[in-house]
């Protein structure tokens, strides 16, 4: 699903991007139903950052909230892009994993509980190295366990985007929701430029970056399920609709043959333009319907 831009509404809307992680998480719940788990006053913070001269944050940049969405139990985990680029460390990773696992356990007990991940992250927190990598492996395992029972929805609104290991986590989720301002990709532009040179990818060329990693392109090439305005109400509505849709008949990440086929069919002897790819790969709705 995608939404037409409406300039008048756009001016009066409540921006989702403007919200911090805590406000974002809260905005998705039915009013008055949410509570934070392991909040900043529990002071569970990274033990590794201060050793490296980085001031830790009392919630480690990961906000977990439990409550109701459309009257049904849900957990929302929001990563704070403003803290260490939303990176995943030992603590933030464990919080996200535990939240998904508890949701999974509730489902197994017969309490339908879906999960929403608000991903503004560059991936593994470099200061925590292997612990961050291990955390991402655990997150992925937990998503795979939960998504059988209830939809796991990834939302990336901007402005950090979702990159690195956490883009794999997004890829495993049942539905991906993006704004035009969002970016989703395995390697971030700076990493590609650093590894393959500026001729391969100029990380200062914002038009190029958004033509490839941007929300509109990801949606138009079938790699995301919804493209929404930067509008809190609209975004919350879309999350509700996707929860109502339930577990998809087939997850995107299970369609290995489809995506291998797409890659194989690409003529790599020439440079493809991002726009052409839209025409060739089409929108996500066609993907969803295919068994």
């Amino acid at each position: 699903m995608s939404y037409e831009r409406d300039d008048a509404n756009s001016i009066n809307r409540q921006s989702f991007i403007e919200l911090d992680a805590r406000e974002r998480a809260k905005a998705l719940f039915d009013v008055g139903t949410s509570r934070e788990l392991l909040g900043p006053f529990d002071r569970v913070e990274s033990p590794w950052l201060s050793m490296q001269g980085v001031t830790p944050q009392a919630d480690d940049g990961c906000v977990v909230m439990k409550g109701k969405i459309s009257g049904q139990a849900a957990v929302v985990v929001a990563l704070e892009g403003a803290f260490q680029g939303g990176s995943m460390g030992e603590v933030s990773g464990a919080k996200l994993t535990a939240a998904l696992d508890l949701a999974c356990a509730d489902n197994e007990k017969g309490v339908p509980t879906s999960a929403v991940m608000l991903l503004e992250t560059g991936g593994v927190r470099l200061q925590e190295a292997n612990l961050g990598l291990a955390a991402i492996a655990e997150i992925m395992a937990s998503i795979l366990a939960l998504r059988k029972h209830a939809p796991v929805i990834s939302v990336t609104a901007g402005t950090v985007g979702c990159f690195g290991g956490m883009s794999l986590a997004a890829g495993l989720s049942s539905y991906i929701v993006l704004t035009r301002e969002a970016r989703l990709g395995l390697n971030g532009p700076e990493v590609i430029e650093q590894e393959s040179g500026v001729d391969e990818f100029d990380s200062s060329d914002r038009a190029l970056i958004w033509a490839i990693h941007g929300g509109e392109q990801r949606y138009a090439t079938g790699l995301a399920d919804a493209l929404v305005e930067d509008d809190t109400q609209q975004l919350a509505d879309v999350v509700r609709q996707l929860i109502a849709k339930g577990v998809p008949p087939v997850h995107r990440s299970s369609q290995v043959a489809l995506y291998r086929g797409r890659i194989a069919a690409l003529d790599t002897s020439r440079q493809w333009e991002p726009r052409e790819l839209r025409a060739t790969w089409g929108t996500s709705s066609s993907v969803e319907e295919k068994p």
Partner: protein
Amino acid sequence: MAQQTLGQVSRSWTTRRDEKRRRMQQVQPWMKGPILPRKKMIEALETLIVSGDKVVLEGDNQKQADFLSRSLVKVDAKKLHDLHLIISSISRPEHLTLFELGIAKKVDFAFAGPQSLRVSQLLEDGKLDIGAIHTYVELYARLLVDLVPNVVLVCAEQADAEGNLYTGPNTEDTPVIVEAAAFHDGIVIVQVNEIVEKLPRVDIPASWVDVVVEADRPFAVEPLFTRDPRHISELQILVGMMVIRGVYERHQVHSLNHGIGFDTAAIELLLPTYGESLGLRGKICEHWALNPHPTLIPAIERGWVKSIHSFGSEVGMDQYIAARPDIFFTGRDGSLRSNRVLCQLAGQYAVDGFIGSTLQMDADANSSTVTIGRLAGFGGAPNMGHDPHGRRHSSPAWLDLITENKPIVRGRKLVVQTVETFQSGGVPAFVETLDAVQVGKQAGMPIAPIMIYGDDVSHVVTEEGIAYLYKADGLEERRRALAAVAGVSPVGLKAKASETAALRSKGIVAYPEDLGIQRLQAKRSLLAARSMEDLVAWSGGLYNPPARFRSW
């Protein structure tokens, strides 16, 4: 050849004209009318310019005659050297390569923002002599007095086969540069983006132009006046609210110029929200001498703005401007007509107030953007940032700054400086001595390079409050007023609580609460637009931001 004989004195009165004719004749064989083929450019420069010439190279604040500057660095420095360059804005790397190669030796300029480090270095290495650092109007005035150019290298969007020029929305400095050469037998060389059959409008007539060449690519122009609302901080919003209440509303500022910065962008975006809530529409901020700031779009759309005259255009604003001819100055073709000199004069004489931000300010409110290792120059801020004593017409704001009760008094222009007490990295903005003093000494300048002199400053606004310096009685009270808003900087630490309380009761210092502003009100949700996407939406899709400002 007019020659006169008076007694024993016999001289030619046409040396400039003869010399121009001699040079032009040498390139004549290559030309078709005024059109020179591109491949002959370097040879033509070597022929039309002579060592030691005064040459204006059009490097404006925004547009750059970059094909000509890129060609000039390729001339043979043995044939052509020691030029005296006049560049209003040293913006491009090749402007300074000319000095490294010895093609140029001396420079008179106004601004060197992007190249300020290298200017400083070349000066130290003895590769470059600085005539003087000017303001824009001042530099152009000298083209008509003691810096009359031999050759000018300028740019335009289009030319026709006759050599008429269309400068497009970014007219900027071209008319005055061309005028100084064309009417004193200088040679006018123009790079154009394209040669067309019919021009949308004629900005400069063919009879002022000697050589036209089609450039290899369109002239460079930078979006210098675009600020992404996403990066406006709540501190800047607080300062903006204080300016609206404590300065614009207090003195009924109807006409003004805004320096570019996030502080002023915040003010522009607060007008349709906070300003509207105070019922100020139609009472302040109606007439502007200003580049087409994208952050002014919401205020324009909400009916705040009656007119805007511009120094130059702004990348991405062309369609929006063309659709709002009641507001902007446009030609018959519909596109913007800008003019730096005229707009600077408007900003100097015709506006109630100027507001700009600075990096450093001393206890007497002197300020400069020249800091150690950087010779940034002044640009246009000092033109607008001073009280022009040649002003004779009055306006409510001008009269409101009169503090004396005498039969003969004059009004005063508002010169407002906004300063955050500390710059990023915890460096205090208020200092005992400006870096400019030391830089001036090192560079052998006759006086320290001050951007805005303290005695011209009427108001200083920081996140702490407003100092109404114009009201202060004597230098001592003035210093105390400034210290009262200078936070915990070295200057601010001199403030005494009892003195500050007295200044507040006299209305010489106002803190937010004195103005009816609560600090916690200063939220980003008050901004009429919080992102570039919002600005596009406000413009109804007419504003087309350049790629580097897009996140979609």
